[in-house]
């Protein structure tokens, strides 16, 4: 990761900026949304791999900053929603696509199905992914 940041610094013009946009592990909430409300039914379980990835990414940017390659300029978190029409579709997606980094316990699955069933015909389910966006300014004279 540090090598990648050095390579990015190489191809950036003086006064160039780097935007780092990535999800961060934080036991993302599961929500049922209906016409009436947004109801949190539980949270996903973070598996070890993504936590290790987050730590490695954080170490890399700290090292890049410490090396004087970039200066942190601005940083914010924001929500990024993955939305499905039914709980079963969400469970299927998590089992097939996200099985390396998150899981759901049975209690959360049951709570989500119940809330969705009570939410009316237009109810949907979603995972609120925590996103981090950081703007770095390329330092001069690498």
């Amino acid at each position, binding site marked *: 990761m540090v090598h990648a940041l050095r390579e990015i610094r190489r191809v950036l013009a003086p006064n160039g900026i780097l935007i780092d*946009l990535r999800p961060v592990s934080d036991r993302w909430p599961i929500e049922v949304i209906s016409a009436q409300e947004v109801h949190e039914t539980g949270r996903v379980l973070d598996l070890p791999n993504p936590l290790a990835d987050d730590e490695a990414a954080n170490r890399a940017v700290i090292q890049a900053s410490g090396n004087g390659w970039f200066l942190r300029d601005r940083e914010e978190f924001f929500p990024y929603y993955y939305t*499905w029409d039914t709980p079963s579709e969400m469970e299927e997606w998590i089992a097939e696509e996200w099985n390396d980094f998150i899981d759901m316990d049975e209690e959360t699955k049951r709570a989500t199905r119940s809330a969705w069933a009570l939410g009316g015909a237009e109810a949907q389910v979603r995972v609120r992914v925590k996103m981090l*966006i950081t703007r770095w300014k390329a330092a001069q004279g690498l």
Partner: protein
Amino acid sequence: MTLQKDTERNETKYLHGFADFTGKRVLEIGCGEGRLTWQYAKSTQTTIGVDPDRDALRVAAVDRPSDQQNKVHFACANSQHLPSAKETFDIAILAWSL
């Protein structure tokens, strides 16, 4: 399966809040199928998207709008060996890839 991503378009809002892409030379690392690319590339001078996944890049190339054929290009590469000369870009985006 009816998955919708970023239904509130927060990613696009924040991306544009953090950078002005107008007339800029942009490098996107981890562009994949170009999902994020199409949210900003139209106003750039040039955009180069790189990704190690050739299949994803083929999708991105097919999806490229006709008015961006000459300004948006894709290359198969990883972030440790970028196929560009020194000081080529005004903005680099690490898209879900650090």
